[in-house]
């Protein structure tokens, strides 16, 4: 599924078929899914299919992901717990020549939804996702869901109820093997929580996916930790 594919191959991904071929002297990229996309490539480039930061579909209007938990987690004061949750999968197609990589397409098989974290006057718009909470790596449909390991530290002096987590996609580190994964940390404090990512896969043998925002060379001025100040 994810990985590098030589030009001329046909790849089936869930409800989509991706083909690269030569036709009448043109090198073509063709995706057939809910709608068809055809693009002309200047050369017979390799395709890289990677999971991408799940905030780009159907339109890039935010770089935050809000995961709402189907069951809230109650955390004892001064405690650390580890859980697994899921996140939506978005697939990105890149072409590469030597070390030059460019994104040519991206899509998702999930149903996108957005929400607001905070009030209409403040707080960011977030991509919305609802997840179960697991104690071990769950079996997921790799085309629809990835697995996120979350280390939750309650550093506050009281019990904390965690119903949702908000993550900044600029700092997401996605890894893949036969499914995609991320490794996150949530630090609960007296006045909210801070979320961040660890650049480490959740199991051995996973490869690092390309980071979209690094590839775009966008200077990022935001802090690495997202501060959840509008409630947990």
């Amino acid at each position, binding site marked *: 599924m994810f990985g590098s594919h030589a030009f001329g191959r046909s790849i089936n991904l869930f409800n989509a078929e991706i083909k690269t071929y030569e036709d009448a002297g043109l090198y073509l990229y063709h995706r057939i899914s809910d709608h068809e996309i055809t693009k002309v490539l200047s050369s017979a480039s390799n395709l890289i299919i990677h999971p991408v930061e799940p905030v780009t579909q159907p339109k890039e209007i*935010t770089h935050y992901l809000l995961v709402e938990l189907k069951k809230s987690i109650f955390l004892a004061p001064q405690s650390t717990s580890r859980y697994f949750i899921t996140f939506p999968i978005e697939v990105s197609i890149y072409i590469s020549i030597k070390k030059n990589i460019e994104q040519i397409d991206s899509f998702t098989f999930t149903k996108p939804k957005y929400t607001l974290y905070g009030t209409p006057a403040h707080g960011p718009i977030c991509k919305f996702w609802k997840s179960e909470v697991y104690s071990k790596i769950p079996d997921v449909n790799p085309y629809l869901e990835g697995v996120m390991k979350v280390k939750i530290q309650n550093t506050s002096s009281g019990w904390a109820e965690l119903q949702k987590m908000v993550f900044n996609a600029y700092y997401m580190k996605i890894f893949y093997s036969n499914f995609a994964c991320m490794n996150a940390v949530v630090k609960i404090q007296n006045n909210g929580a801070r979320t961040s990512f660890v650049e480490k896969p959740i199991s051995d043998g996973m490869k690092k996916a390309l980071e979209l925002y690094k590839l775009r060379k966008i200077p990022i001025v935001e802090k690495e930790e997202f501060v959840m100040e509008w409630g947990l």
Partner: protein
Amino acid sequence: MTDILSYTVYGEVTISDILVFVFVVVLSLVVARLLRTNIRRMLKDKVAADLLNVLEKVVYYAVIVTGVISVLPQVGINLTGLLVAGGIVGLVIGFASQSVVANLISGLFLIFERPVKIGDQINVVDISGFVVDIRILSTIVRTYDGIYVRIPNEKVFSSEITNFVANPARRFEYTVGISYSDDAEKAITVIKNVLEEHPFVLKDPSSNVYVTDLGSSSVDIIVRAWVPSAVWYEVKSELLWKIKVELEKIGIVIPFPQRVIHFAEGKGTPEAEAEKDSEARVDT
């Protein structure tokens, strides 16, 4: 050493005076550079690059000129005459450039207060559109029909500004009328499903759909939905038709204005009128 410093170079100007002059000029150069660097750092992300460039230059040269002028008497250049002449010229220029200065000051306030940013959709002095540029004297707006409008900053600053995208989310509202014979609960369910299916209708704040009025021709259902400000217009223009199509799929129609007329039994029917006519003829 003291002898050298008090050595008169010309007029009453000594070497120490020249040294003081050089020191103040160098100091003002250093201060100007420091200020320029700090302004660049502070406003890099807040102010457009070309405007920042102008601002840096204004501050840089203002500090140097102030430094040099303040130390000119030290080297025997008397500024009294210059100041008097400068004062009169300044007064004349001041009156002449009143609006320019007002626009300049307003521009600076706009830059620091930032009620609008480049790319925002605003309404100011009855002009709606996208902010293309905020210059030192004027703000450039491209109206929705693509017209270039230059608004003096004084007007922008002193007028009521509506910024449509300053907040992350905005609400829109439709009133959908259905026939009295249709099931309003069913219609509400269908409308809620349409909103739920649309990715940009926000999960939170949640949408409201309810019967708001029992009108003369229809049962009115109000639909209120929150969407990201960035896509507000496209979602608003897309959803109403989707709602209409989905309502029609389950047989709910949007009624035309109508009036129901009741006739009293027998009265007003053609037969009754004919009977009335014949009775009148018999009487005569």
